[in-house]
């Protein structure tokens, strides 16, 4: 039961994008379509789970003052592993996401969870926390990507719903990310705090 709360908090109560407002650089940058958002979210989830796992295992071994550099090295290692493995075994996916993978290193969500959660909790809780937060992040990115894709180019997951000329180009561009995110947060706040 405790682990379930631990897992589910990432979706609404402590959603990284909508509530904690963490990791906004990739959230705003890559969400020009739903599929980009989903791919980025899942890749981040993997890194988050692995980094949380390793950090919680080695937490007793790391002196307080060098913990941040240590965590960064762990995270960067997993990101590079994801990048190389994806390039080797899923070239099609890599083609679509390759540009974004190195960005995961600088996602403060990953470092934030390592520092705020994994370095203080045991292995199981850390892995569960990583999975919950990661999937919550993926969900938020997919929603934001879906909204931008729908309004910007009239498509959803690549299925054409209305002609592109009727779309609002601003949603595909950077300002659309901010506008879309703002309205999504407003809607979610209305729904959860009603």
């Amino acid at each position: 039961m405790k682990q379930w709360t631990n897992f589910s908090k990432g979706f609404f109560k402590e959603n990284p994008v909508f509530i904690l407002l963490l990791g906004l650089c990739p959230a705003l940058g890559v969400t020009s379509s739903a599929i980009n958002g989903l791919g980025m979210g899942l890749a981040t989830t993997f890194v988050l789970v692995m980094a949380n796992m390793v950090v919680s295992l080695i937490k007793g071994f790391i002196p307080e003052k060098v913990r941040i550099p240590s965590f960064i090295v762990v995270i960067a290692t997993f990101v590079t592993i994801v990048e190389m493995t994806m390039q080797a075994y899923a070239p099609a996916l890599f083609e679509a996401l390759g540009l974004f993978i190195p960005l995961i290193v600088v996602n403060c969500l990953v470092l934030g969870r390592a520092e705020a959660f994994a370095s203080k909790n045991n292995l199981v809780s850390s892995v569960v926390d990583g999975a919950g937060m990661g999937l919550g992040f993926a969900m938020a990115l997919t929603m934001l990507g879906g909204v931008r894709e729908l309004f910007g180019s009239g498509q959803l997951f690549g299925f054409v719903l209305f002609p592109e000329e009727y779309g609002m180009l601003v949603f595909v561009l950077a300002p659309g990310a901010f506008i879309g995110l703002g309205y999504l947060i407003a809607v979610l706040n209305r729904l959860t705090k009603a």
Partner: protein
Amino acid sequence: MAKRESTLPNMVITLVIITAVAGGSLGLIYQLTKTPIEMSAEERQQAAIQLVVPEFDNDPAEEMYELTSDEGFILKVFPAKKDGELVGAAIETRSHMGFSGDIIIMVGLTPDGTVIDYQVLDHRETPGLGTKMDDWFKPSDKDGSQEGRLLDPLFGISAGDEGGDSRSVIGKNPGDTDMLVEQDGGAIDAITAATITSRAFLHAIEVAYRTYLDRDDAASGATDSGDWE
């Protein structure tokens, strides 16, 4: 578990161990994935060649040769032959004029330089804008995003009747069509909100055309340029 003291030796030892383990595991993964990565790159190259030239029965990768463009780019030329006769060439061309980084395109040209088809191999353009060049410059009936719109009847227009030809580069010869975006006085519609990418894309095709046809001139008068080899 008690935290270890933050003394200098402790910190140095910890960081050395962590970076050594990280470096070691990355080296291992690199070794493991090196061959598959090279293979998939080669497969993509093969697939791109087959897509951009007419049917052939030779091995273009085997007969590949390199040309240097005026800009100093090294272009790889994969000649496609059917029954010993040249039917076209797939040319790996590039442009440095993109929004960020080089754009690398495999473009198929007939022997007289008409564009048969193209495939974007590598780029660092803006996702959602510049990335549209994958399909943008092809005729609209080949472009998946231009057909089968669910709500088309609602808006009273038929699928893909706009743009179409003025966007496409396929079947056009850079020798008699201005391979420039409309803003520069050319004949090709640029990608909406990605004019720089469009410019670079057309530049890459123009480089391939110019260099490839120059090669023919050079080859006909090649007797005195043997020392270039």
